[in-house]
């Protein structure tokens, strides 16, 4: 099934941790990454699209900025290693075919509004009658039941109602969101963990279950200590000043961009002493103003005065140095400083290069392969591995339908009826 020739410079084929698990992925943008996590670890993930194509095919960015069914880079990224078939689940004939597929599968991933699967008679009870070990995972904005269950929610709405949106941005303007559909992805990630737990359990017990994932709840996990801060101290955590959350902690401009100074770099820490030596070694004017014992008091660090003094000394000093210099020299001195990298920086990053993080994957409309993020983890025995590029629309129809006993004649009929 796996064919390494699809992937340029891919690792040689090794055992796959999830070999033998079959996933039917009928999900949309909120769930496609969940299926990718399974597929890149060796599961047989079959992306089931409506005959008009799954939603992510219509989402940017597009290859050469041109819209087209096979041109979405979001689609190409989130569906690697999957096989793809078309099937209209809105009609009875399509639902019948799906039931046949379910008997061969371990997991179904779906992201429909609650009750859609029930209307199709493809809800958990119905699927479990066909295949008791099936795990049905439903990833939705708010979960299967409750007052918001029918609400519409794009990524931004998940961030808003989940509480993360409130925590990001600037004090003087509306909250700003985190980049890159992280609410959708959070739902996909937790969906993958819960599904994997249930699938492992089902392999032992022979019985599956229904997993109900709420994007809103997933986002609420990202609130750091905000919920506990309200519960224990009665205060609502607000979005911080990104420049200096408190003195010496935050994002600072440098010669060619920005750097991030971590909280552990100031106050009662060894890194603070190292920072002071560094500033002195490199001739920071007025560094002695940072020497007092008040710089080890968090209450002082939070004061306007401390912010002002630190900024007055550090900002011009940092402005004369590049982010690469500050990063490497800071780290050499064991100070937790990081560059604020832009996408172009990532491709040039020596650490990611050393780890061969980015991988090349062929694309049907392009001579050059697509260079994309690779392994999020390196497993020594069962490495992450792209089995194949994201499927073209209906690419594996003949192959997959044959596997469940749909012959060419039946398939032709399904195609002419618009079911496939």
């Amino acid at each position, binding site marked *: 099934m796996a064919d390494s020739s699809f992937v340029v410079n891919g690792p040689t084929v090794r*055992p796959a941790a999830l070999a033998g698990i079959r996933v039917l992925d009928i999900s949309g943008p909120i769930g496609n990454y969940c299926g990718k996590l399974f597929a890149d670890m060796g599961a047989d993930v079959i992306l089931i699209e409506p005959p008009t194509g799954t939603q992510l095919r219509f989402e940017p960015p597009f290859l050469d900025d041109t819209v087209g069914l096979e041109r979405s880079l979001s689609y190409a990224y989130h569906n690697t290693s999957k096989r793809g078939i078309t099937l209209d689940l809105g009609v009875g004939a399509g639902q019948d075919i799906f039931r046949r597929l379910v008997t061969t599968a371990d997991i179904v991933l779906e992201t429909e509004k609650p009750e859609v699967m029930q209307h199709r008679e493809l809800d958990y009870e119905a699927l479990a009658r066909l295949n008791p070990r099936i795990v049905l995972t439903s990833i939705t904005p708010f979960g299967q039941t409750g007052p918001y269950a029918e609400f519409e929610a794009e990524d931004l709405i998940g961030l808003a109602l989940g509480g993360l949106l409130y925590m990001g941005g600037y004090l003087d303007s509306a909250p700003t*969101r985190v980049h890159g559909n992280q609410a959708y992805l959070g739902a996909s990630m937790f969906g993958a963990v819960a599904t*994997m737990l249930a699938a492992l*359990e089902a392999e032992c017990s022979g019985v599956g279950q229904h997993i109900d994932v709420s994007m809103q709840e997933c986002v609420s996990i990202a609130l750091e200590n905000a919920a506990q801060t309200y519960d224990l101290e009665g205060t609502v955590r607000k979005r911080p000043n990104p420049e200096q959350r408190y003195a010496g902690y935050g994002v600072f401009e440098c010669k060619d961009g920005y750097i991030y100074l971590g909280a552990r770099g100031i106050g009662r820490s060894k890194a603070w002493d190292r920072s002071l030596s560094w500033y002195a070694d490199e001739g920071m004017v007025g560094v002695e103003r940072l020497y007092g014992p008040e710089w080890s008091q968090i209450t002082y660090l939070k004061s306007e005065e401390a912010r002002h003094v630190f900024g007055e000394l550090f900002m011009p000093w940092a402005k004369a140095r590049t982010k690469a210099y500050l990063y490497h020299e800071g780290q050499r001195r064991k100070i937790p400083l990081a560059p604020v990298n832009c996408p172009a920086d990532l491709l040039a990053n020596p650490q990611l290069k*050393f780890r061969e993080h980015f991988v090349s994957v062929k694309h049907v409309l392009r001579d050059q392969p697509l260079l994309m993020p690779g392994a999020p983890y390196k497993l020594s025995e069962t490495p992450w591995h792209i089995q194949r590029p994201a499927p073209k629309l209906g690419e594996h129809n003949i192959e997959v339908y044959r596997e469940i006993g749909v012959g060419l004649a039946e398939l032709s009929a399904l195609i002419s009826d618009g079911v496939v």
Partner: protein
Amino acid sequence: MRGLPLEGIRVVDFCWIGAGSFTTKIFADMGADVIKIESSTRLDSLRRAAPYKDGKPGINRSGYFADRNTSKRGVTVNMKHPRALDLIKKLIIRSDIIANNFTPGVMERFGIGYAEVRAIKPDIIYLSMSMQGSEGPERDYRGTGGSIGALTGLQYLSGLPGRVPAGTGTNYPDHIPNPCHAAFALLAALRYRRRTGKGQYIDFAQTEPMVALIGPTILDFTVNGRSQERNGNQHPYAAPHGVYPCTGLDCWIALAVINDLQWNALVEVIGAPKWTAEVRWKNTATRHRDSVELDYLLGHETAKWNARTLMKALQARGVSAGMVQNAEDLIMHDPQLAHRGHWIKLTHPEMGETIYNAPPYRCSRTPAELRSSAPLLGEHTREICIDLLGLSEAEVDELIDQEVLK
């Protein structure tokens, strides 16, 4: 028998602070016996992180620590003591997984690098989740979730154009990207071990899942040559899409109007103010083209509304809208989270009854359980040494006396 999926799995947990502790918490809440190795000689710094019960600092009083360490048992061992190694090895041979999020080299200095551990427990699953991985020129570099956000582009890409990058305002990679990817990798390794009897080493660089989560943005650069910039709350093709003021201090509503149908419904809900009649507001392309002006005009309308009332009115008409909730809204006033029982109260010996997040998924047959609040420092030292490692009371006393169990 509770029948939880990970019952019978034991984890030796050297993780501390954010991402690592949350990874093993996922396991603990699903039935694994997670034994957190701590030492009063080098505290998990999260124990010294606010908020504290009643605002009063104490190593057993941090709500941040508590939320990240439910359902675990805790033992204190001073790994720098020469007699610690034998004890830890006894624990390792009775375990399935060993996890840490130190910088590379620390576990080796303790004498429990992968090679040493595999020698005594060949099928061990060994997770090392350092910031930048076990190998490479920057493997020794240090940082936290905020550094990872900066290194991977997330900070740069989030916020308003022309201003300091705002990021998420949190250590985002610690909370979802890294715990979820690490838990998934561990579960995959666990399945492989069940089928083959083989353990393995997981080299986990905490930067890499975060890079994996901005894949389309990376592809826009590698394929189209576009290095994306911050764009506030703008949508690539739809408008209005953003955060708009409502009545009250720092109250906002998020709107994501994706098509003309939703726009028409929104116009009706806000009482069709005159300006909406202009033809350029009637289709997505021109709304998006003039979105700065649109945001300004729309903001004047939303400012007359209570955020919750407007959200309900819009959602009743199928418009993607959500009030921007803060922690108080989530805990005290959100009917959906209440319906799902998201906020769980557990009783802790020192903190009393406090609030915890439930795992954000409901499993119909094997529901995750927060079986206990976070361990007090060293709470289960004696129990683990005696029941699990087979030491006598006297031997434990002696090890405490010698400051091995410290």
